[in-house]
């Protein structure tokens, strides 16, 4: 009997280890950054790499003081939101609430639903046409929706075994090494955040999802978070995975959850 209890306790412990809950994961995640960058306040991570580097931050603030290069595109996204009847979809009756709600785990489909996935579904429902996943219209509309939620906090919930499994898969993807360079997302954006990779400073993963879709000077335009995932994978010499695929959505689910409590921002300029 004693042996049986010990075995059950052991198994329970191992299962618990395999799928640690979001709160304890995030606590450890935040603590890591706190130790690495003791002078950076948690709330400041909403500014991404600019929270770590003074020089880059002053350039960023100068850009924001003027007319940010994405302003026109975001305004256009707002017009497109109405033009294509996206405000008629139940998911987007309240755009600010939609931004805060996504990504979430849908029990009916047993899948993670990202903001862009919901937008694509709504767009098809309203226009009968397909919407892309990475740039252009979807990035403009998604940026406008996110602007409506500026100042609100990311609050991703992981409830139930299936949601936990999706979260765990996203987490394993984030920490798993891949590609010819044998690197994980975490290698750059956790363990080496703040350090230079060639001329660029590696951004911290904490706060990565507060300003998406982002405007990148390199792109000279807006792009979704999953567009960036594709670019990162390519840089690691891994084959990029389709945006809005299940695994990419699970990665986004994990990453958004790690930024829970940080403010969503409309300052979406990145180098």
């Amino acid at each position, binding site marked *: 009997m004693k042996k049986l209890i010990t075995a059950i306790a052991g198994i329970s412990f191992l299962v618990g280890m395999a799928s640690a809950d979001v709160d304890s994961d995030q606590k450890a995640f935040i603590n890591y950054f706190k130790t690495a960058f003791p002078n950076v306040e948690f709330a400041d991570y909403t500014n991404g790499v600019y929270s770590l580097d003074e020089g880059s931050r002053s350039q960023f603030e100068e850009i924001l003081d003027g007319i940010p290069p994405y302003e026109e595109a975001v305004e256009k996204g707002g017009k497109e939101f109405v033009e294509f009847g996206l405000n008629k979809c139940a998911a987007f009756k309240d755009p600010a609430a939609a931004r805060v709600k996504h990504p979430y785990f849908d029990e009916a489909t047993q899948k993670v639903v990202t903001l862009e996935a919901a937008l694509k579904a709504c767009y098809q429902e309203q226009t009968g046409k397909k919407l892309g996943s990475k740039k252009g219209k979807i990035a403009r509309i998604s940026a406008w929706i996110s602007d409506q939620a500026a100042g609100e906090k990311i609050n991703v919930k992981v409830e139930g075994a299936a949601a936990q499994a999706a979260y765990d898969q996203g987490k394993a993807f984030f920490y798993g090494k891949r590609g*010819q360079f044998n690197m994980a997302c975490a290698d750059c954006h*956790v363990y080496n955040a703040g350090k230079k990779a060639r001329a660029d400073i590696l951004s911290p993963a904490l706060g990565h999802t507060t300003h998406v879709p982002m405007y990148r000077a390199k792109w000279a335009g807006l792009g979704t978070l999953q567009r960036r995932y594709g670019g990162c994978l390519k840089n690691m010499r891994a*084959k990029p995975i389709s945006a809005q695929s299940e695994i990419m959505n699970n990665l986004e689910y994990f990453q958004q959850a790690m930024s829970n409590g940080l403010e969503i921002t409309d300052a979406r300029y990145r180098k």
Partner: protein
Amino acid sequence: MKKLLITALSVFSLTAQAGFMDGAHNWNNGSSDPFKSAIKAAESGYKANLAVNMAWRDTGSMIKEAKKLNAAGKTAAAVALANKAHHQSMNATAQTALAESAGPRF
């Protein structure tokens, strides 16, 4: 005499066996075409990597390039490239096992 007989019989039997095989026999696999077997190995490895989202960026284009080289009659270069692609797919397979249970180092 006995020793001589055994040696002679051994030599005869090995010679007879060797006589059934053609000179170009490939000892490494079941295919007589070195490119065919190399590209088959690369393609099946790459396909398995793709199925688990762990493929490397350049493996697919290496396979395509190897096929072009082979079609152009540059067999040695084609085999070398196909083997390189296969090697990439094997490394990606090794990564897969570790990536499935990856977690933070803190």
